[in-house]
């Protein structure tokens, strides 16, 4: 706050550590996928890489937090962070857009085509296949065994929708409390948000187990299972990231960080949480419900 000049950091080794971490992770993973889990590159290598990335995050964000709490960032730096976070979330939106695009393409085009909307394809290649959504029989059942049934939107998914929407409200309440400098309310609402987030994940895990064990709905059960698990799975991954971010914010709150007018990290985490929430609404409508 105090500095007039835009803060320019010293040379730093964290980015390079991050690159090495990323590389170790993906090289290990690729090697394990291609050659099985052996040799120089394997899942151990991947775990080491992930550990390096975690180490880098602690180091890098630690530095940023120190600089921030040390008053080195002026309002302009704050604006930069805000913009960066917004554009980052936009890029995440586009990532999900690719998978939603695949879902719409499958539902509106490829499945109907295979089932007869494209008469020649149907007649010459898949005469026995009839289209439908949810897809309870695949064009070639010997390669992709269809699910027995799919998850009912009115059950856990609806509950999870309520949970996630409420958590968006509670995180906003926490934000208002922070701005009003009510630390107690802040801690309370943030704690509730985190609990709701992890509850959501618990239900989601339960639903996956049910899908695999009882419904025979799997990643490998054709395009329905494919889009279902990829969309909800990536969303679940993002919930995990968001909930972790909020947990860290909670810890920082307990350490006395953030001021009513200076709490970008908190805001960034809550934006991210809202984003995860909005994606879920899309999922609920297009994956579970319609």
């Amino acid at each position, binding site marked *: 706050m105090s500095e007039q000049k835009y803060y320019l950091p010293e040379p730093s080794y964290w980015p390079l550590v991050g690159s090495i971490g990323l590389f170790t992770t993906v090289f290990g993973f690729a090697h394990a996928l291609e050659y099985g889990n052996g040799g120089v590159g394997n899942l151990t290598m991947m775990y080491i890489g992930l550990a390096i990335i975690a180490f880098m995050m602690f180091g890098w964000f630690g530095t940023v937090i120190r600089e921030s709490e040390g008053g080195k960032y002026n309002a302009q730096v704050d604006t930069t962070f805000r913009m960066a976070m917004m554009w980052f979330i936009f890029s995440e939106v586009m990532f999900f857009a690719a998978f939603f695009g695949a879902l719409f393409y499958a539902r509106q085009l490829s499945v109907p*085509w*295979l089932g007869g909307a*494209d008469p*020649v*394809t149907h007649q*010459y*290649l898949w005469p026995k296949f009839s289209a439908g959504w949810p897809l309870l029989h695949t*064009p070639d059942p010997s390669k992709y065994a269809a699910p027995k049934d799919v998850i009912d939107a009115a059950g856990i998914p609806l509950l999870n929708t309520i949970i996630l929407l409420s958590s968006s409200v509670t995180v906003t309440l926490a934000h208002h409390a922070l701005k009003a400098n009510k630390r107690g309310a802040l801690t309370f609402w943030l704690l509730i948000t985190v609990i709701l987030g992890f509850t959501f994940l618990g239900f989601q895990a339960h639903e996956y187990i049910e899908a695999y064990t009882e419904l025979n709905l799997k990643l490998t059960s054709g395009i329905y299972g494919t889009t279902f698990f990829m969309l909800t799975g990536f969303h679940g991954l993002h919930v995990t990231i968001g909930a972790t971010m909020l947990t860290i914010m909670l810890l920082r709150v307990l350490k006395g960080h953030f001021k009513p007018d200076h709490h970008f990290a908190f805001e960034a985490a809550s934006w991210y949480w809202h984003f995860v929430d909005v994606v879920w609404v899309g999922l609920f409508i297009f994956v579970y419900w319609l």
Partner: protein
Amino acid sequence: MSASKTIKSLIGLLGAVLTFAPAAAMAGYELNLHPGVTKISHEIYDLHMLVLWIVTIVGILVFGVMIYSIINHRKSKGVTPATFHESTTVEVIWTVIPFVILVAIAVPATKTLLQMSDMSNPDINIKVVGWQWKWEYDYLDNGVHYFSNLADSSVKASELGSGADVYKVDHYLREVDHPMVVPVGKKVRLLITGADVIHSWWVPKLGVKHDAIPGHVNESWFRADKVGTYRGQCAELCGKGHGFMPIVVKVVSEADYQSWLGEQKKAAMAAAQSTNKVFTKDELMKHGEKVYNSSCAACHQPNGKGLPGVFPALAGSKTVDGPIEGHLHTVVFGRPGTAMQAFGKQLSAVDIAAVVTYERNSFGNHMGDMAQPSDVVAVEKQNSK
């Protein structure tokens, strides 16, 4: 490659750059699209020429202004720079003009496109399947069905370091063993699909190019106005044999077409009968070599050594030097998830028996045994349950 050829090439280029027309007249230097032999290919040609002329004229105008400016508006000529830097009128005009030109192009283009997609009233229906790396033709109306491979002469000459003079090979890389044969003046509807990866069936002079997509069927059609042989090539990267799967279409008179159909049916009957025949080892080896070169050599190499790390060697291979049932099984059903295809669908029992026999007794493999067509049928039956 002689020096004189190089010089000839350079002169050719100079000619082309200086003036389009005279260079076009020079033998060997094709410059433009061929109008082709179907109504559609003519329309495409006209469209191509229309747009080509438009851009040539626009180009001459724009480049003309630039060249004029470059020559005259130089500091060395003592010009002092003007100060204008915008003019709404001019800017609107040169936004609208291109737009108008585009509309003028879009109208005929739309017409042609609609005609191309009119599949109604076909006279003949042929299912075309792209394989790595050959074409399969299935005459749906009369049961004629066969594969079309790159001609033997080209296969040999196109080997790396073959030393062959490819100029002496007839239609090098653009000749097949069994061309598609169709009658002149008839609407031929193609149902195009892919067996493994995407290919694209393209014969420029027929004005047809359509992708062969695995799992989906594309429709296309042509009606050739002239008897003749028309050549094309696969037009979608499909792996290492992409440059080696040409397409040849023979357009013949109706009478020739009928007699060709008759021959095909006879040949098919003879092949069906030979499944019950017992062959000598020599017969199998001789036929096997032929099958090997057209169906297997592309990957496993003519010497059976494969490409290390990419395609396995057959010389000393575990499968080839193992029990014959396993060997037959691999050839008939392929190895899912690898480039090894299920040849049971593509080759006759005789072919498979022959090629397996050949592989077991070549490239330094000395198994000494042989397979008969009946063995192949047995393997096929046993596993299709």
